[in-house]
Every structure is written in C-alpha cells, then in structure tokens.
C-alpha cells in the first residue's frame, strides 16, 4: 500500500477548560521504524499528546497524521494502524491474561483459531505463558505492563505508543521491557513513540529525543547531539594527600578549564572529549601525582533540560500545577 | 482513676469534633428516616388490621422503631470510625499515649451518645412534622432512657468488632447483625399479630422487648418495662465485656 508513513504533527494544541494549555503548539516528525523518545517532567503534556495521537482526545487545534491518516478525520484508520500501552495498565482484574488477549483479538476480527495462536505467541513473547491462565488481579506491576504491551501488539500494528511504560517497575522488569522494545524496533521495524520521565530510558532506547516542558518542545535531536550541544565531558580527581592538591590542579588544567568540584577534589572540563581521560591518567602518572579517585562525568539529558529550561528534570514536575486530567 | 476519664474525654472530644466537621455524621439517620417515611406513609392502613391496638396510632408506632434504629445504627457505626482510626494509624498512637486504655472505649461511647442525641432529635422532628400526635401520659424519660441504653449497647458492639478486626472489613460484620436485630422484630405490627417463624425469632430477639417498652412509653401505656430495662442492662454488660475483649486483642496486636 505504498510506503510506510510515520507520525507528523503540526502545531498541535490542547486546551482544557481551566488552566493553561496542556499542549501548546508542538511540531514533530517521527520517521517509520524510528524510536522517538518524548521526555519531560510530570505535567509537561506528554500523556495529553499521546492521547491525541491515539485519537482518544480531540485536539483543540493543529493537525497530525499517524501512519498517514488524519487523527481527527480518519480516526478508525489511525486506530487500526496503531497499538498503545497507556499509563494506566487498564486491565480487568477478573479476567486472565489469556482471556484479555482473546478478547482483544476477537474485537480486532481475528478468527477463533487465529486468536488462540496469536494469544499464545504474544504470551510467550512477553514471558507470561505461566501466568497466562491466572486472573490479572494476582499479577505484579511488571506482569501487568507486559500484558499491556502484548495487548497493544495483538493486531501487529506498525506504530506503537508507549506512555511511561516502565514507571514504577523494578529494575529487572524495566530491562526486560527495554529489551523487547528495542527488538520490536530493530527486528520488526515497528515505529515506537515512547514517553518517559526517565533520562536513562530516553538515552538508551530512543533514536531521537524530544524534550517537552509545559506543553512546548524545548529541544529535539539524537541524545548524543543534544548532550554534545550542552557541553563536553568533565573529569574530577581527588588527590591522595591534601598536599598534592596544587599538583593535581596543575596537571588537570592542561586539559581544560577548571570547574566547580566536590569538596577536596579538582575538576576540569575536557576540551578534547571523553577520550582525553586516558591522557589525563598518563599525565598524572608522569608527574607522579597520586590520586585517590578519578571520575569521568558526561553531561546528561538532565543537563540538557536544565540548560533549556533553567530547571532540573528530576523534580521539575513537582513544581508544576498543571493538571493532565482528561476532560 | 483520673487517667480513665481524661482519656475518655480526649477521645470523645476528638470524635465529636470529627462529627461536626463532616456533615455525613448524620448519615445513620437516613436509613431509619427513609423507612419511617415509607412505612408510616405507605402502611398506615395496617393499623386497621383487627387486633392492632396501639393508642398512639401507626405513625407513632413506626416512629419508635425509627428512633431506636437511628440511635442503634449510629452507635454501631461508631465502629466504622474506630476501624478507620486503626487503618490510618491513629488508634495505635492513641493506645500508646493513653494512660488508661479502657477510657478509650468510654470516650467513643460518649461521642456516640452525642451523635445519637442529634440523630434522635432529627428523627423526632421529622415525625412531628408528619403529624405524629403526642398523647397524654407520654413518658418522655422512659423513652429517652431506652434510646440511650440501646445506643450504648450498639456502640459497644461496634467498638468490639472494630477493635478485633481493625480494618474496614469490619463494616459488613457490624452492619449485618445490626440489620438482622432491627428487622427481626415487630417492625410492622405488634408482636401479638406476628405469626410463623418470625414470631418465634422476634420473641427471642432482645431488641423486641426494648422496642415494645419504648412504644409503651410513647403511648402512655407502659408494657414490659422491667424486662426491657433488665435486658438492656444485661446487653450492656455483655457487650462491654465484648468491647474490652476487642481492646485486649488490639493491644496484643500492637
């Protein structure tokens, strides 16, 4: 049916009756097969954007197409092309995992035989075969998310929306989910639109990251480019003896300008990039300066956020009163 | 003994404060009022049944039941409050701080009486507005005394259950027996007109005697007075022990 289309958003706005705009005119573009990370604090407008793109909430103004279909005028076609795992793992506690999959499959028009086959396949894919016939009420948070993902994939959508998929999960479940999302993108070529408040998640999973704050996109590019824009890595050395401090300063200053460091330590920004660390070690060794601790710090997406908005990402959501509640 | 009353006073004051800051405190009156309106409104012709002799009329007949219902439900529902206090951790702090823990029970009972006064007044006002006549010889104090005793008994029951279970699961365990006790009694007609299994059950129900005596007081025609007060006293004694038992179990659980 012609070439695959991704997501195209133009000046999308969503207002609620009271309060400021939840989404204040965003433009973005996600290529087919890409993993796009939408990063921002609580209340930034991430979930509202996802609700609009999945046709669950109408935009106040602006346009968007998903898989080539207009979200307002061609809702059913959009819904047929996408899968979504939204913030609330909205499940029925009295049904089993398998029954959820069968119901979803039935509603998508799969025949009885296909439902069984597809259900089994997805249960295996997300690692829920053993728990498949237990009621969801007994599932852990991680299991519910996995079922959520399986349900989103029932009809093999080309575009997948994941709204904060790992919030509240233990590290193990989180890694497992990341592995599956990567696999879907890499092997199956699924386009993934992922929202998160976790830097690490965006950093690890996303090909490109859009940083959203108070309804507007403040930065958008690959994680590497965004971080490089902000600054270069820095190195921090703690001298073994207090008396050696001046010597450490002397050596390190060759590699870049000094910046604030932890008490007792010395830090400089590496003008030559992270590779310069090896040179620093060699130089310290050559001058016979001993250090108790040597550390390389790279700017994080939090630094990017800080630079763009003046606030730190972690904890930024608490300042905002913006209500993301649905109309 | 000073600690006992101090604790009771503190608990009661707090509970009463909670009542006045939450309008829902009158809620125990709603069900009885509803039934009162439904029965006194819809069933007055039952008073025409041969053998139905109640001097004060059918509305008054229903009013007494509604009143006792309101004070009993209010009393028992104090248990919900107590269960809530366990769930939010207040009860534990209370038990740690109280110099005399029995005072806690007294405190809740006192607060419950305050509420019963309000709900009882509400029910009475509504009954008077619907045209309930006040006949001569009406023994006000007798009626109030029984209502007070019923309230105390119900509160002790609810408190015991709540302290035993210490969660909102106490709800159904409190509600169901209270319902049964209130309904398996001469609700619609006097005991003499009941037949079949319900007559047997009603006769065994201690509440029946209290209800009959209360109705007698209202009509100025005292009946079963001695048995009603004796039964009330016994009930309160037994339920006080029950409440203490609940308290002990709560203490042990820490």
């Amino acid at each position, binding site marked *: 049916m012609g070439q695959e289309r991704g997501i195209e958003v133009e000046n999308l706005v969503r207002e609620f009756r009271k309060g400021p705009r939840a989404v204040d005119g965003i433009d973005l573009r996600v290529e087919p097969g890409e993993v796009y990370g939408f990063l921002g604090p609580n209340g930034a407008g991430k979930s509202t954007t996802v609700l609009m793109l999945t046709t669950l909430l109408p935009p106040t103004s602006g346009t968007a197409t998903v898989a080539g279909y207009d979200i307002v005028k061609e809702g059913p076609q959009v819904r047929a092309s996408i899968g979504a795992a939204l913030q609330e793992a909205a499940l029925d506690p*009295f049904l089993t995992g398998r029954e959820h999959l069968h119901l979803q499959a039935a509603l998508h028009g799969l025949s009885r035989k296909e439902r069984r086959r597809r259900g089994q396949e997805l249960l295996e894919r997300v690692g829920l075969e053993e728990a498949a016939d237990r009621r969801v009420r007994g599932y852990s948070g991680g299991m519910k998310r996995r079922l959520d993902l399986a349900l989103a994939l029932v009809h093999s959508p080309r575009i997948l929306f994941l709204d904060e998929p790992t919030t509240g999960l233990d590290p193990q479940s989180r890694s497992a989910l990341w592995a599956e999302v990567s696999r879907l993108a890499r092997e199956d070529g699924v386009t993934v639109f992922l929202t998160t408040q976790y830097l690490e998640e965006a950093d690890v999973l996303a090909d490109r990251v859009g940083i959203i704050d108070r309804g507007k996109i403040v930065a958008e590019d690959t994680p590497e480019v965004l971080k490089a824009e902000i600054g270069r890595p820095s190195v921090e050395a703690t001298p073994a003896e207090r008396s050696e401090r001046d010597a450490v300063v002397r050596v390190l200053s060759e590699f870049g300008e000094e910046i604030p460091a932890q008490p007792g330590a010395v830090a400089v920004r590496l003008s030559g990039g992270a590779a310069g660390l090896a040179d620093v070690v060699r130089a310290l060794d050559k001058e016979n300066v001993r250090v108790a601790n040597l550390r390389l710090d790279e700017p994080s997406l939090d630094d990017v956020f800080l630079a763009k908005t003046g606030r730190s990402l972690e904890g930024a959501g608490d300042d905002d009163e913006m209500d993301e509640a649905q109309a | 003994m000073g600690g006992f009353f101090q604790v009771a006073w503190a608990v009661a004051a707090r509970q009463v404060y909670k009542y006045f800051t939450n309008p829902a405190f009158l809620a125990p009156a709603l069900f009885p009022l509803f039934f009162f309106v439904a029965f006194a409104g819809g069933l007055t012709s*039952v008073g025409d049944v041969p053998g139905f002799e109640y001097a004060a009329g059918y509305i008054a007949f229903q009013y007494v039941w509604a009143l006792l219902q309101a004070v009993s439900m209010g009393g028992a529902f104090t248990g919900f409050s107590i269960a809530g206090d366990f769930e939010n951790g207040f009860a534990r702090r209370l038990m740690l701080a109280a110099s005399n823990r029995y005072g806690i029970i007294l405190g809740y009972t006192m607060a419950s009486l305050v509420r019963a006064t309000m709900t009882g007044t509400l029910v009475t006002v509504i009954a008077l507005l619907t045209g309930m006549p006040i006949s001569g010889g009406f023994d006000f104090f007798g009626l109030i005394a029984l209502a007070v005793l019923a309230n105390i008994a119900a509160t002790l029951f609810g408190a015991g259950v709540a302290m035993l279970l210490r969660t909102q699961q106490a709800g159904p365990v409190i509600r169901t027996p209270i319902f049964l006790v209130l309904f398996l009694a001469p609700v*619609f007609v006097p005991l003499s007109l009941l037949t079949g299994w319900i007559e047997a059950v009603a006769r065994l129900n201690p509440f029946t005697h209290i209800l009959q005596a209360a109705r007698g007081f209202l009509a100025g025609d005292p009946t079963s007075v001695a048995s009603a007060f004796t039964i009330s006293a016994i009930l309160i004694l037994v339920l006080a022990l029950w409440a203490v038992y609940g308290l002990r179990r709560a203490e042990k659980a820490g």
Partner: protein
Amino acid sequence: MTGSSFLTQVLALARRSTVRTMRQPAVIISALFFPMMFFSINASGLDAASKIPGFPTDSYLDFAFAFPLIQASLFGAITAGSDLARDIESGFFDRLSLTPMRPVSLLGGMLAGVVALGLLQGVVFLTIGLLMGVDISSGLGGMFVIVLLTVLVALGFGGIGAILAIRTGSVEAVESAFPLFFVAIFLSSINLPRDLIEQDWFRFIATINPISYLVEGIRSLVITGWDPQALALGFGFAGAIVIVAIGGAAASLRTRVA
C-alpha cells in the same frame, strides 16, 4: 486485518461480562440472598396486613412476591452499571476503544450480562417462592411471563444504570444512585395495594411512579391470574423504560467517544 462484525463484538463482550460476574461469587450470592432475605422478613412481618379489610388476597406472601424480583433487577442493574463505570474509570474502555469495537457493542455486552443475571434471578426466585408456598394463579404459563417481565424490568434498570455510568464515568456516582432507586421502589404499591394507602401524598406518588405498574403487572400473574389491564400496563411501562433508557445510553455514548 478487517474489523469484526457487530454481533461478534457483542458476543465477545457479553461473554466477558458474564464471566466476570460469575467470578464474583459474593455478588451472585448477594444478588440472590438479600432480596430473598428481605422478602421473607417482610412477608412474614407483614402477614397480618392481609387481614386489612379490602385486601385482595389472604396470603401476603403471594402479594409480596413481586418485591424480590424487582429489587433483584435493580441490584443487577446497579452492579452492571458500576462495572461499566469501572471500565471507563480504569481506562479499560479506552483500551477497547482503540480496537474496531463500536462503543455500542460494549453497551450491548453489558446489557446481555444484565439479561443473563435477570434470567438466573427470575428462575431461582420462582423456584424458591414455589417452595415457600407461593401460589401462582396463572399457572405454568404465568411463570414464563413472570420471568419475561422480570428480565424486561432488569433490562430497563440496566439501561438507566448504563446512562449513569456513561455520563458520570464514576463507580461511586453509580453506586450512590442505588439508595435513590431503593427509595423509588418503596414509594410505590410494593407493600400495599394503591387503594389501601391511606396517606394521600403517598398514594399520589405511588400512582405516578412507573414502578408501581411493574410491580402490579407481576403481582397480577401471581394473585389474579390473567389480568389484561395489569399486564398491558406492566409490559407497557417496562417496554417504555427499556426504550428510553437504552436509547439514552446509546446517545450518551456518542458524546463520550471522539
């Protein structure tokens, strides 16, 4: 892949509604136990009422038999309504909306569940009633009609429950409607025939309350036999409620979904 047909959707959702109800034994037992308990307490407590001059039958048990059926229908409707509200509240409705499912199918599934429960209640109560000694004047045929009318009433109440659920999207709101309905049931001829209600204001309310006619329809089958007028009024009101309520629910759905 193409979407599914309306029938497939309703069947899948009806199956789900029924399964989840069956998996809550507490709900089933309450739905069957409480109405029966109230019935037996009420019926025996008010047995003397059959001695009121002008009372249409000498068995209050027969007279009151309509009560558990109506009360049970109400209970079933509120339960189904709060299940639907829960689906909306939890986001399960949104999840289902992302499939080709037509929202009206969810309504259909929920109502199918109400009908199934209503059928179960009708049959169970009829059986228990007969064992308790209720005498159904209209015979075996009448029993079928009783169950039919009960199911229709359940459907009507179910539609009202659905409107509440869709409009409010809140389980709490739906469940707080229960007492109101309960009151409405009592402000009818459920306990006494209308002509024996002495208080004018009460009799007036009972006369304009559609529930009175539902009750009287069922009751006529028990104490009178075949009473065309009572049946016409009973089925007429039940049918009207069904049409208005389900129509209202379907319309409310349209405004809820984009």
